[in-house]
């Protein structure tokens, strides 16, 4: 039996694990963690086998479709893009589950935790495997719910419940845009078929969508006075979904709050996997983006800006996990930028971006797990209370430093020596340079360089404040158990060497996603449709460009060492409420006040909803008015019935007389 036929098991096994753990977990030791771990391990093996098979023959992708209802289908598609994602997700999930058995051992409800993470893994794998946009959306929403449940895992904490709600609602804004994009796409395709869709044609499947890109591009609508091509509209709406899910500006606000969940959840969902779904979506529909004028530019700008913007907030946070959260936002910005530069480098952008995605998954999961390890041991995540942790937790400290080096992208340009972050991040920055050359807009490149400096600054600030120096408060600490340190070590190894090992093969492999037996897309042709001029990427950038990221990263390291390691600069004057810049950064640009307090509470809740209430009372009042009218007129009319018989006689006589007159009049008139 060919391993492709088992592809469907990849999401199904964790889903089954969810059901089993949910119902039986409480009765098993350790919350039944063995069930999801086994299931995910099998999924990982299958994914790995399929990936290896695909590596040998990238054109033979796995594609299976079943009719769902109407002209929609359910199906799986494992092409190079999906394969690497699957392998990465199953692998990261597996390690984090193992880590969690240690981390969650003292929790009240470990079975619920493992059930929900298993469900999450299943949904995420389903998302990756989707061969049609609707199924992708479905899994997209399911991972959102799992995220909601897991952020609110300690729901008895009001802050956790609020953060969960905020996360769900903020991403929901993006989801609605995504859904709208699907709806527009559906309507366009439906019209192309004149409403009669032949059997066996599933109009939201990617092959069908990609085959109709030129026709969709030819449709225009006027929206708010602007003539917009439907392909641009759809891709921007999709990107709106990605912005929500992947925490891009301005919908990134939920991600730092999401750290209310257990740290393992942050590692799995809010660093390694779910938040990258937005990137995956753009990568998956890349042929549409490249055919859409302006869309990729928007992607590039938003990504670059987010990378920088999140970095500025990262340097002032005092919470261990929040720093990492802003770091994640920033890195996701890089990934988006990596896709955006597709305007210059074509399909290769997918390879670059996904490569960074995978590497980021390793080192960011590692960072979080290290932080988790610290929190698990020490019991606090305020960096101001830590310091010198390296002495009590040597393994954790070592892996943390490896992860930080990977994050900042340390490596020697021109050789294959370097951490994995080096290979992927530098590739993005270099492509951003090419993007500048090709389009004449240099802002994304400048942003990405500045962000690289900030990245280095905040991560080494974290390292120095947490692991070196003297303990600032009295905390008891110990190294974490093996179930936690082993996954740390494995991640650290990968963060160190994965990039170097696969750098050559990875990009070409993933970039081949769009030419195979399932879809056959000519990216160049589509790029002309979108008005992009692709450059042949030949590595002819100036030497400075190649070295620039390393230089700024080292600069960041040095500054952090001077300030936080040697403490030669007194930070007290800067770090104060009186410094307006610090205040602005520390308050996270007042987004919370604007989005939560003003827009959602004042405008939507108090404004619209209560206005609606008033209107509703109006309807109610109208109905009541009619009934009151009837009753009150009854009350007045009954006064005619005086009880005196002479009046009755008078009424009869008057009636007769009036009737004579009335009939006469009516008959004259008519």
């Amino acid at each position, binding site marked *: 039996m060919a391993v492709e036929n088992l592809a469907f098991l990849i999401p199904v096994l964790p889903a089954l694990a969810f059901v089993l753990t949910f119902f039986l977990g409480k009765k098993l030791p350790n919350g039944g963690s063995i069930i999801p771990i086994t299931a995910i391990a099998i999924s990982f093996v299958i994914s790995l086998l399929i990936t290896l098979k695909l590596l040998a023959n990238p054109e033979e992708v796995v594609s299976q479709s079943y009719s769902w209802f109407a002209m929609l289908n359910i199906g799986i598609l494992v092409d190079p893009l999906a394969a690497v994602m699957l392998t990465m997700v199953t692998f990261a999930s597996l390690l984090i589950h193992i880590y969690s058995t240690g981390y969650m051992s003292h929790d009240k409800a470990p079975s619920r935790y493992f059930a929900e993470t298993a469900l999450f893994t299943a949904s995420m794998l389903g998302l990756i495997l989707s061969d049609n946009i609707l199924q992708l959306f479905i899994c997209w929403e399911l991972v959102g719910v799992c995220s909601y449940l897991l952020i609110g895992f300690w729901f008895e904490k009001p802050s956790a419940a609020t953060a969960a709600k905020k996360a769900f609602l903020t991403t929901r804004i993006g989801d609605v845009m995504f859904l709208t994009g699907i709806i527009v796409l559906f309507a366009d395709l439906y019209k192309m078929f004149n409403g009669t869709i032949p059997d066996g044609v599933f109009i939201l499947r990617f092959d069908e969508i990609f085959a109709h890109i030129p026709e969709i591009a030819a449709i225009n609508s006027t929206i708010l006075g602007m003539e917009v091509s439907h392909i641009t509209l759809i891709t921007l709406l999709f990107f709106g979904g990605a912005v929500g899910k992947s925490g891009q500006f301005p919908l990134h606000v939920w991600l730092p709050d999401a750290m209310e969940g257990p740290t393992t959840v942050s590692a799995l969902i809010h660093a390694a996997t779910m938040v990258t779904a937005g990137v995956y979506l753009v990568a998956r529909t890349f042929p549409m983006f490249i055919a859409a004028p302006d869309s990729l530019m928007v992607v590039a700008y938003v990504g670059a800006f987010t990378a920088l913007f999140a970095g500025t907030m990262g340097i002032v946070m005092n919470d261990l996990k929040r720093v990492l959260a802003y770091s994640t936002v920033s890195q996701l910005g890089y990934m988006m930028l990596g896709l955006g530069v597709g305007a210059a480098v074509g399909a290769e952008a997918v390879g670059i971006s996904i490569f960074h995605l995978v590497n980021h998954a390793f080192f960011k999961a590692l960072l979080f797990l290290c932080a988790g390890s610290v929190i698990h041991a020490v019991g606090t995540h305020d960096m101001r209370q830590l310091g010198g942790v390296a002495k009590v937790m040597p393994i954790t400290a070592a892996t943390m430093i490896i992860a930080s080096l990977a994050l900042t992208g340390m490596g020697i340009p021109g050789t294959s020596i370097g951490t994995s972050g080096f290979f992927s991040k530098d590739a993005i920055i270099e492509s951003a340079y090419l993007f500048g050359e090709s389009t004449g807009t240099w802002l994304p490149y400048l942003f990405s360089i500045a962000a690289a400096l900030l990245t280095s600054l905040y991560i080494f600030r974290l390292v120095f404040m947490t692991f070196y120096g003297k303990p600032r408060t009295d905390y008891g600490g110990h190294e974490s158990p093996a179930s936690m340190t082993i996954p740390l070590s494995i991640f650290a190894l990968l963060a160190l060497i994965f990039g170097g090992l696969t750098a050559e093969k990875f990009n070409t492999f993933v970039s081949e996603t769009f030419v195979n037996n399932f879809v056959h897309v000519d990216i160049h042709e589509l790029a002309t449709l979108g008005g992009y001029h692709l450059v042949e990427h030949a590595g002819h950038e100036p030497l400075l460009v190649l070295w620039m990221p390393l230089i700024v990263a080292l600069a960041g390291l040095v500054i952090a060492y001077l300030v936080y390691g040697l403490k030669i600069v007194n930070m007290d004057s800067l770090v104060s409420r009186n410094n307006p810049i610090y205040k602005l950064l520390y308050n996270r640009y007042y987004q919370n006040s604007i989005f939560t307090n003003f827009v959602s509470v004042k405008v939507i809740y108090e404004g619209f909803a209560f206005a609606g209430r008033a209107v509703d009372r109006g309807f109610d009042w109208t109905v009541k008015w009619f*009934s009151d009218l*009837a*009753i009150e*007129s*009854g*009350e007045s*009319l*009954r006064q*005619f*019935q005086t*009880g005196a*018989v002479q*009046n*009755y*006689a008078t*009424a*009869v006589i*008057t*009636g*007769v007389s009036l*009737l*004579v007159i*009335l*009939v*006469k009049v*009516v*008959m004259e008139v*008519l």
Partner: protein
Amino acid sequence: MDLMLFAPEISLVVTGLAVLLIGLFIPTDSKKILGYLAALGVLVALFFTVSSLGTEATAFNDTVSIDALSQFFKIVFLVVALLFTISGIKYTEGNSHTEEFFTLGLFATIGMMFVASANDLMVLFVGFELASLATYALAGFEKKNAKSLEAAMKYFIIGSLSAALMLLGISYVYGATGTTSIPGIAANASVLVGSPMGLVAVVLLMAGFGFKIALVPFHMWAPDTYQGSPSVVSALLAAGSKKMGIVAALKVFVVALIALQAEWQTAFAILAVITMTYGNMVALKQTSVKRMLAYSSLAQAGYITMAFVVLTPMALGGGIFYALSHGFMKAGAFIATAAVTYMVLSENKDSTDPDHIDNFRGLGKRMPVTALSMTVFVFALAGIPLTAGYMSKFILFSSTIQSGFVWLAIIAILNSAISLGYYAKIVKYMYFLPTDSEKVSEPLPYTVAMIIAVIGVLAIGFWSEPVVYWAMEAAKVLVGGM
């Protein structure tokens, strides 16, 4: 002439006289037998009438005609009389004037039946007065009860006034056409068209019949009388003598004065709208159930009057059908009220208004059969499906639309919706408001009468075909003259 044609009337006359005579000679506590006798007489009459359905004949020098119309209305009257006599058995229990009660009731029924078969204004007038006189006396049957007397007094005075108006109207018609025979008038009525005399005659007759039908503004006596009279008598008035006004109006206007259609159609349109609206609105605020039913019966009269406006065979058939349904529904509702009144009075002899809606509190627990029957009656009056009331409205309202009187249908429909307000109130009191009173036993005769009425209401609502057929046949009799 075949005397068998008059078997129903004859059996009623015989029964009535027999009841009167026997009553003179037996002691009060055995007078129950009179009620059974009267009921038996009505049943016999009903049997004769039903078995002669479909015969057509004229008698007494063409002053009386037997046809589908007359037979149908006779059935209506006899059904009401049956309910009246059965429930009267309980009402008159221990009363020394029992024989008068039943005799008057039977004679009133005879009067109504003669109106139904009248083919001459003279017969019609005499029948009308016979029924009126008997019911005047019945309304004041409780001689010691101020309300009952007041009811009788008002009924009597307005009744005599109406009789005088009607007689004057008849005299003008006679003056213009030179005959009192209904077909004769129809043949000569063209002289009245467009003349002031014709208009005055029409309006005077309308006032005369409108008094019985209780059309606003000739209705003023009705709420007082229905409220003040014994409930059983109110049942006879609302369900029986009201229909007499309708059949009389049908004969005089639709057959005899069809030439003056333009005049009276307009007048009826005005009256119908005013009557149904007034009745429903005033009923909303009533606290006396009998008075509420009285106003509801104004409203129902308003609906039936729509048939005079629309004037298609279907509408007339609908009106006639409605008359039968209304007979069952309204008589039933009044009898249910009688049962409650009896219950209240047996608990507290001095109760001044035993039909107050507060006495209906928790009736569902206290008198389950009565409450359930009352629910059926009021839902039927409101026109909830599967009841006679719904079927009636269905035919009548739909025919209104058919002839293009959409505005009238809409007014009627809105009214019928308003009416739900007070009907639901009764149900609410019976089932939803708590009471701490005990369950009481329900008097058998009332129960029997109510069950008959319930069966009638549901049977007509469910198995309407024969009734619809005969109502349409009756309508054809009227339309024959058009």
